[in-house]
């Protein structure tokens, strides 16, 4: 049950930030959402998800509040802070540069 090797930490942060940038979500939903959107390619383990969420909250990029789900159970919802939105933009730009660079290498070399 170690940390997932298929998701680099920074990438997981980026995915989380992206996922909750649309609307506040609880942990379970974040994991499911990433799994669905990636067509089951990316499966986030709880063992990495929750520590990541707590780290991001500690950084001040996301904030948490307790709210009811559609089934009426209380759950912890995470949403982006203003700081977090800026961080998301930064990381997105980084990611774009990185993946673009990798694409270039793969095409040309």
């Amino acid at each position, binding site marked *: 049950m170690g940390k997932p090797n298929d998701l680099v930490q920074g990438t997981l942060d980026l995915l989380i930030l992206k996922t909750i940038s649309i609307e506040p979500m609880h*942990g379970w939903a974040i994991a499911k959402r990433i799994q669905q959107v990636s067509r089951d390619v990316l499966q986030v*383990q*709880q063992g990495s998800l*929750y*520590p990541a969420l707590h*780290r991001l909250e*500690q950084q001040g990029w996301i904030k948490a509040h307790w709210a009811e789900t559609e089934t009426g159970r209380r759950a912890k919802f995470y949403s982006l802070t203003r700081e977090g939105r800026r961080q998301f933009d930064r990381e997105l730009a980084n990611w774009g540069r990185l993946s673009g660079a990798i694409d270039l290498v793969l095409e040309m070399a």
Partner: protein
Amino acid sequence: MRSIKKLTMRLRSLMFRSQVDAELDDELQFHLEQQVQEHLQKGAANQEAYRMALRDLGLPERIKEECREMRRVNYLENLAQDLRYGFRIIIKKPGIAAVAMVTLALGVGANTAIFSLVNGILFRPLPYPEPDRLVRLTEYYPKGAYVFLRDHSQTMRVTAGAGGDFNLLRPGLSPVRLTGTLVSATFFELLGVHPEVGRTFREGEDTPGNDRVVVLSHSLWQSQFGGAPDIVGRRITIEDTSREVIGVMPPDFNFASGRSSLWMPLSLDPRASSDYWGPEMPVFGRLRPEATLAQARQELTQLMPGVISAFPYHMPAAWNKDVTVIPLQEDLVGDMRAKLLILLGAVGLVLLIACANVASLLLARSVGRRKELAIRGALGAGRSRIGRQLLTESVLLGLGGGALGLLLARLGLATLKAFLPADTPRIGDAVIDGRVLLFTAGLAIATGMLFGLAPAINCWRVDLLSSLGTGSRRMQPRSAGRLYNALVAGEIGLAVVLVVGAGLLVKSLWLLARTDPGFNSNRLVTLQITPNGSFGKDRAACLSFYEELIRRVRTLPAVESAAAVNTMPFSGEFPVVPASIQDHTGDTEGPTPLLWSGAITPLYTSLMGIPILEGRGFNDDDRADTAPVVLVTASTARAFWPGEDAVGKHVKAVWEQQWRTIIGVVADVKQYGLAQNRPGWVDGEIYMPYTQAVTGHREFPSSMTLVIRTSSDRLNLSGEVRSLVADLNAEVPVSDARWMKEVISASITAPNSIAWLFGTFATMALVLGATGVYGLMSYRVAERTHEVGVRIALGASRWEVLLLMVRHAAVLAVIGIAAGCTTAIGLTRLLSGLLYGVKPIDPATFGVVSLTLLGVALAAAFIPARRATKVDPNEALRFE
């Protein structure tokens, strides 16, 4: 703004810990429920869905712990917890903790003691204002050269101070011999020191006519003048001169030597040419503001030609050509620096061995604690958390050992100070001060980390789950065993390095101590007869004084023979004359040969047992008015007349008109010390009959050493000699009655103390290394009890079992010894300055040390190994 938010969040996490934890529980519980829900929707049965969800989730405690870690609340809390836990562990197993702490205390204590010396002698600034501006001009200079430098240097203000011995006349009592310093008028002011009472010298007080003043040391003021409050203004007679006491220095002032008990002005008189350009003395300086050491060096080199041409006679251009300027501190410390650093290195190795020892101890224990650690892991402690826990424990042990070590260091430092030669520079400055405390604390923590690393690393490697599963002591990870082996081999290797070093030093000390001094020191006693310097002006009076004294001394009961000499071997003094040597085609621009010149009465050579190899010795017919004659030593004869007969050749002091004829060659004597006949700057030795003697300062030597061969070595002659001298001249002090045997053994105090210290450290290393091997073997024997039982049950003999066990230790020892010898070959070079008659890579020493270490390792392994042979197979197979 952001950091405030973070802080409040962290505080919330810390203060409302239970609430935050409850929220975390809730969050994960929610996740679990969702997971169950999902499995149910996929059609799993209730029970099945819950089980599957739990499996998906993994270890919830581990996740929680990691979340807490992310919030960084754990640091402080964990530390407190680790400390509490560490104390509990230590108290639970006080034996191991005590062994660890005592081992560390030895290492840390020895290091602290040596560091106190290093700190006091090398690091603490000199007790003068702006000590880093004080410098020493290397080499020695006559008064005239000093004055030239004083008047011409733009980068430094310079001062000079020449040590000497002087007679202080005491009304109604016999005169007393004191060590004093002749200094330039600027001396005290340049150093920046102030008197305790009165004043120090004023400018111009170092010129003839103004120089009848003296400054006393605190101890002289107390001992000779009872601390009289009206001391300033009193007149005292030193040698033949009445001087006014103008001040007393405070007790801690000890420049340029701790033995100096009075300071008098140099008499700078260019008209007294042989004095002004004669005796050479050290010159010190203070850099002027803005000037740098480099500038001072450059300037001094540029000034030297001027100094040389200022001499009233031709000086070779090579005179003092390598002169430079060094910080005063460096000058005072001298060769202690290298010795101290070597000792510090040695004691550092001891600490490393102690660390390895404690590390292996803890490693053995941590393997025994694997089950406990595995449970902690299963309950959610991350590996880094467990590692930190182990490190905290070892740092606690380190601090405990450090505190204990500090106590040892206090004792050790007192012992060290008593043990080192009293003339060790700045030894009084070695105390346990703030810097030493800081050093010790740092050392304790660092060692704690260092030896804690082994068990901590090992715990990271251990698969916690599997060790929980088996819980057996026998199934132990290979890595721990390897680490343990490496530690023990390393310990042996380090011990080899230290013991080889100690072996080399002890061997050279042994060689030094049994070196033949070239004379028979049995029942030989010496006394200093020191009339005022002016006594020598009347050569006839001087001669008859000594002639009569020796005649009377020889009539004393128990005296076999008596003679006088200007300087005894090992006296530390080495009077030389610049010599001309007939037919010796030396380099005319090269330095004039300097010859040690002994002035002896006729019986000296036979009394000392110095054989005359060729020609004849002196006799009573060699008088002041007969043809001048000399004896040369065999090595001098070889150096100047190789393959020729030296007898019949001629030498003289450079200024003399008449040649002195060599009438005999005598065997060499260890005149300077056991390690060398003469210092490197001296070219040979000659003896003159006292009747015809002359010193390097063109004077007749008046102070002589009386040498007496007695018939018993338990006899105090000084009383009788004193009264004989007093009968002849009441103003001549007799001092320093010493047995020559004691003088010789005192001459090797310094190498002796270094060798002893090194030997002590090597012994510590040996004991620690042996304990390490013993610990390893005990551990392995206990661990393999089961296996041994099986072997014995299957018919292995006790002997085979013993061999099996000891073989392991032997292999480790051989590896350690090989590594140690290789390291030692690289390191013993550093000792070469301290060795005598032994090469740094001495095969005998290396061999003996290797065998010793092997023997010690095997012996240490044998005791636990024998326990293995006593194993009862029935018991062993039931073990666990």
